[in-house]
């Protein structure tokens, strides 16, 4: 995909809103770990914000459960355009090990569009850092017609 600054997925210094849609806490802790000194995504201007209205990226961890679905939609709607959904962890990508559970709907892409998936159980904070860096450097392509986008190969 062409790297065109008018096509930026998000502006520089991407702000994140973290949403646990039913995960085991492993991914959540790694997201928090990526904020702390060793990885420090804050040096890219990324902040974990408390309000979806200030966020550019919705970070979703865990499979979407029936109970969180309503809140997920509500929070997604509150994030201003342009917005991107970052599914962190195998669960958020596909339902992972919990796929088939009666209360589990599946991955985030089942309910939201424009989902960028980072698999891993959980992905290493280094990985989370490198993806945020790609946002910062605008190295991620836009969404294709199916509404899903994948990180480009370096």
């Amino acid at each position, binding site marked *: 995909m062409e790297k065109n600054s008018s096509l930026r997925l998000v502006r520089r210094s991407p702000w994140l809103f*973290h*949403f*646990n*849609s*039913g*995960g*085991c*806490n*492993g*991914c*959540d*802790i*790694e997201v*928090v*770990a990526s904020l*702390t*000194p*060793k990885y420090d995504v804050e040096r890219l201007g990324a902040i974990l914000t*408390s*309000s*979806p*209205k200030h966020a550019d990226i919705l970070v979703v961890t*865990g*499979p979407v*459960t*029936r*109970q*969180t*679905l*309503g*809140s997920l*939609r*509500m*929070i997604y709607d*509150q994030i201003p355009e342009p917005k991107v959904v970052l599914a962190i962890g195998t669960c958020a990508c596909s339902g*992972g*090990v*919990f796929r*088939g*559970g*009666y*209360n*589990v*709907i599946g991955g985030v892409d089942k309910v939201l569009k424009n989902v960028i998936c980072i698999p891993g*159980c*959980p992905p*290493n904070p280094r990985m989370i850092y490198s993806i945020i860096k790609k946002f910062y450097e605008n190295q991620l392509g836009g969404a294709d017609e199916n509404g899903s986008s994948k990180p480009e190969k370096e």
Partner: protein
Amino acid sequence: MGAVSLKRNDSSSVLTVFPESLPETVRAVISSYPHLVGITATHVANSIELIYSFDNWKGEMKHLLVSLPEKGAAVESISSQIRGAYIYEMEIRDMFGVSFIGHPLPNAKLLLPESYPQGAPPPLLKTVSLEQLMQILNEVQMQEPPSSVIPITGSSRYSVESIVILPFGPYHPALKEPEHFAIALEGEKIVEARPRIGYVHRGIEKLAETRSFLQTLFLVERVCGICSFHHSWTYTLAVENLLGISPNKKAEFLRTLVAELERIHSHSLWIGLLGYWVGFDSMFMWLWSARERIMKLLEMIAGNRVNKSFITIGGVRYDVSDEKLKVVKREISEFEKEFRRITEEVMSYGPLEERTRGIGIYHADTAISSGAVGPVLRATGVPYDIRKVEPYGAYPEVSFDVVTGNRGDVLTIAEVRVKETFESIGIIQQLVEKMPSGNPVPSAFFMGTSKDGEAFARTEPPRGELYYYIRGKVGMRNPYRVKIRTPTLPNLVLASEAIKGYTLSDVPLILTMIDPCFSCEDRAIVYINRKEPFIVKLPRAAPQGIGLGCSL
């Protein structure tokens, strides 16, 4: 040892009780066995079997067996005798449809999603399959798009004039995991807090019944991403006991090593977050950067930082070489220096002490009747630690102290966790010194079938006693029943007691002092019937505005 089979013919530990005489038997039992470990329900043939397990603080357990007919199963609630029982009873009511007479929240459900239809069969009954459940729930979901209104938990008996009910969560900046509390406020003072969990309920206990013993190991590891190793270890202990497998000594040592590393990372994580909650961000950053040293060790030993998949039935999956053990030894003493410097500095910092001393005070009696476990219980002076009372792994071979405090509040709990971290460092040093030789990796992964029988196992994860119960049926590849009782469930009962009388600004501190892990307890779900009359009615839109995106 950490895992024991349930011998039903041994009357000294197992008592069969008629449902009618349960309350009086419980009354007699708790005088000498005051700690309710959990209530396990299993659906067998045409009945629902309940096992009430008690402990006398010394690792001796007493189990009461009550058998109820499947149709119209009902039994007296024991929550008037042990407060913490109410939350276990709610779980069983949800998952098995058993009704508890005299329960404080008679129509409330605890763990199922809001969309779970009233007439649908309870999910853990053997008569309903996973596919049928999926079908029922998918149909409901198609008909009714999910409501975006957060339910207010339960009814309230307060009048509108003096009391405000404030929804806290499910997505709140102070909570890293979804969880909803309905907090009743009088002015700024909290008069009541009602939890509503179930946002991260994934139905693990039902899934486990459809997967093989080995697959379930990976499933239960993901009950919780912080004490993941303890979950897989406790499960493995129970399975090994059921099948009569025993790992060699080196495997025991390596398991203990990883478990203690996990305790250190979990405790430094919580102490760091304590700094975050009181607004002391440097403390948060220091502790989390020190913690990275431990994460690196875990990655080196197991190949992954969080869900380590290090253990397997009969041993561990990888051996750890002597060179790696040398690295562990070196890094752990570096960590000790760093951790000592940081904690000495932050714990003696006046404002931190002022902010946490005397916040969320509770007494040993409250903790015991709530069924609380782990550092939260030990902070009140009860030296209950499964590593000591029912030693497992390599704990009999190392020396360490059980850390206790003399009063329950946020500061004491923090001190207990700091001291426990130092004890863990000591244990790791001893383990590396005494590491036996041998091959800890079994020649093949366990792919066999089960025997008839039942077994349970207990361990001491960072948050407190974890209890697994496993039942096997001969010739089956998968467990017949896996019951998990996580430490956060009883601790949550305690936190909602301890919060009363404090102000709104203390809410994040008190709710998180138990180091809650909602993904642990949410294997089953809580749901309170919305038809229950609310005396205080909130406008439907109100929770949205308050609950989300604005910090209290």
